[in-house]
């Protein structure tokens, strides 16, 4: 009992010494953690349009960009990735060249068939935009298009699915049609790189605001799936277009409507009022931030236009950011595999 009479005072004295020391050690330890080098971002996109003669979805790839910037935002390097090459789907997995591709994905059932669902899947399976009502004669499911990119630093793939419901409703005597764009996909870093952000955006390139609804994934559920769904309601129940993805459960999954911090669709965010973005992101301060797992997200946007107008052109863009996960070089990039 008598041994503990001075315990409190001794503890206070000890803490008055220990606390500053511990704080100093903590500060030094934090400072000793290697900070990440510059952030490398890649982006590329497509223009999608419905050919009025054939009623098929056609695509044209847009030039991509590579941007290297410090974490404080100052840009170190920016370059166009050159003319985009549209090549067959099979070529993408054999190519080490930085080639953005815009190809139709595999479709397991033709539109209008009796098969319950129409889906496009990533080679190897995993994610899809699915409609539950392909038999509705006024509900058109277009063949999906996808953007994919494979090199020694990353693998990126996003699919873009377009659905149309003609004669959806009549506003002020004017018949309206509705189009829904669904995007699903993600990225996977390679060669010592770590993924810090992956975002996919799309917008209807119309002069005015035509979007009437949007939705995206914002969490990974208990089954490990991030998903969203948006309804077209018709006789006999709603047509529901659902999107689902199975990413690694880590960091922030979210979506937004409007301009994105990394993506500019059209000049000076010209189509921002119709833009939908879906992204996954993580901190990028230290070399062990980011992810080496597959990450991505899903989103849908519903657009409405008068029935007699032409179907709008859609602009899409996918962007991913990487940091080098290996310490050592001054520039912070040279230790990782070159793209």
């Amino acid at each position, binding site marked *: 009992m008598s041994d503990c009479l001075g315990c409190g005072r001794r503890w206070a004295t000890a803490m008055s010494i220990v606390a500053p020391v511990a704080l100093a050690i903590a500060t030094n330890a934090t400072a000793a953690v290697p900070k990440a080098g510059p952030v490398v971002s890649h982006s590329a996109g497509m223009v999608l349009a419905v050919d009025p003669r054939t009623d098929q979805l056609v695509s044209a790839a847009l030039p991509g960009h590579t941007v290297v910037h410090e974490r404080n935002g100052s840009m170190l390097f920016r370059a166009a990735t050159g003319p985009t090459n549209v090549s067959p789907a099979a070529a993408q997995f054999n190519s080490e060249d930085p080639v953005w591709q815009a190809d139709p994905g595999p479709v397991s059932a033709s539109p209008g068939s009796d098969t319950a669902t129409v889906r496009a899947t990533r080679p190897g399976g995993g994610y899809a935009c699915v409609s539950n009502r392909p038999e509705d004669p006024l509900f058109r499911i277009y063949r999906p298009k996808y953007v994919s990119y494979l090199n020694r630093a990353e693998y990126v793939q996003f699919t873009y699915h377009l659905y149309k419901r003609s004669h959806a409703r009549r506003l*002020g005597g*004017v018949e309206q049609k509705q189009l829904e764009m669904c995007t699903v996909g993600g990225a996977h870093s390679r060669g010592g790189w770590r993924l810090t952000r992956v975002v996919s955006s799309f917008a209807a390139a119309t002069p005015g605001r035509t979007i009437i*609804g949007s*939705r995206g994934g914002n969490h990974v559920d208990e089954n490990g799936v991030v998903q969203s769904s948006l309804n*077209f309601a018709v*006789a006999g129940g709603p047509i529901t277009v659902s999107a689902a993805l199975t990413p690694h459960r880590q960091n922030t999954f979210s979506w937004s409507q409007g301009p994105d911090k990394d993506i500019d669709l059209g000049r000076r965010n010209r189509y921002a009022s119709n833009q939908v973005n879906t992204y996954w992101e993580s901190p990028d301060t230290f070399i062990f931030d980011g992810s080496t797992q597959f990450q991505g997200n899903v989103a849908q946007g519903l657009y*409405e236009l008068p029935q007699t107008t032409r179907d709008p052109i859609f602009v899409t863009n996918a962007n991913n950011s990487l940091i080098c996960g290996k310490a050592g070089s001054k520039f912070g990039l040279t230790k990782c595999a070159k793209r």
Partner: protein
Amino acid sequence: MRKTLTSRRAWALATLGVLLALGGYLLLSNPKDDNGARPRTGLTISTGRTDSFRTGAGFSIDEGPVAAAVHWHGGPIAGVVYFTAGPDPKSTDVYRVQGTLANAKRLTHSRVNLGVSWMTGRPGQIVIASGRAGAIDHIESLEQFQRGSPDPGLRGSSPALDSDGTLAYEVNSRTHGLDIIVKPPRGAARRIPHSPGGVAVWGPGHRLYIAGNKRVTASKRRQPFVVAGFGGRNPQIVSLPGRRVQPIIAVSRSGDIASSDGDGHLTISPAHGAPRRLTLPWIPMRWSPDDRRLLVLRAHDAFHGGRHVGLLNPKTGAIREIGSVTGGTVNVAVWLPSDRRRDRP
């Protein structure tokens, strides 16, 4: 002994330092946020809809924010008038005017972009079409809409309610174009194919009136017309002056047709006699219950709507503005002599 104690203290201090360093790093870098359990890093542009949207398939009626209200100004009007008005053509709500326009009462609170797209009625009964069931038109009673019933109603657009309770509405044709479904209060519904494209209105003798624009043979010109008695035994074609007719017309109890061409002309086609074409930037909405005045809207078309509401004297062509709205536009009106319908609290 003392040396051992000093060594132990040094180890304890080092361990404490490492733990504090680890805590500091976790606080600074937030490497795993458990899907939003901690504050997020980076930019998030929120539309404010994330929480109100349901995730998963199925019918949902609670998506998005409620549309803003419009503000009414103006004087007295006889009877009871129901208007649809909203901040934009896709986010309209039902307002009821009994007395003066300035005292208009908002009856519905629809979601943005999922508003009331059309309205019809008779004393004691209002029927609307709206996009609340997933942005595609469904028809239901006003009370059903106000309750937010899980039953979305009938799939169809542009309902027209006759004085005997017969409901006509349009649906997509099985082949091409639009069909009209006529559903009496008792008995089987019937389908009338090949609607001319206008919005159906009931006229005298329980006859349907629908406007259309017919392409003249071997010409690019179109001939505007109205079918009186569409789907009946003796349909009558009424030719209209001008190049075209807007899809929305107003038919009086005596059969007078009011139409507009979208180019600033309003035409009154009496049941007996020659049509009168007035150069007025107003579009017809509804005849008064006594057929002596025509409720008109200063607008190019009903889709974009207009802010100013007036009364047209069809004999003189004079228009008296009776009121206006701010913060949006008016689109559709139903004018009843009286109203046995009771408002929900």
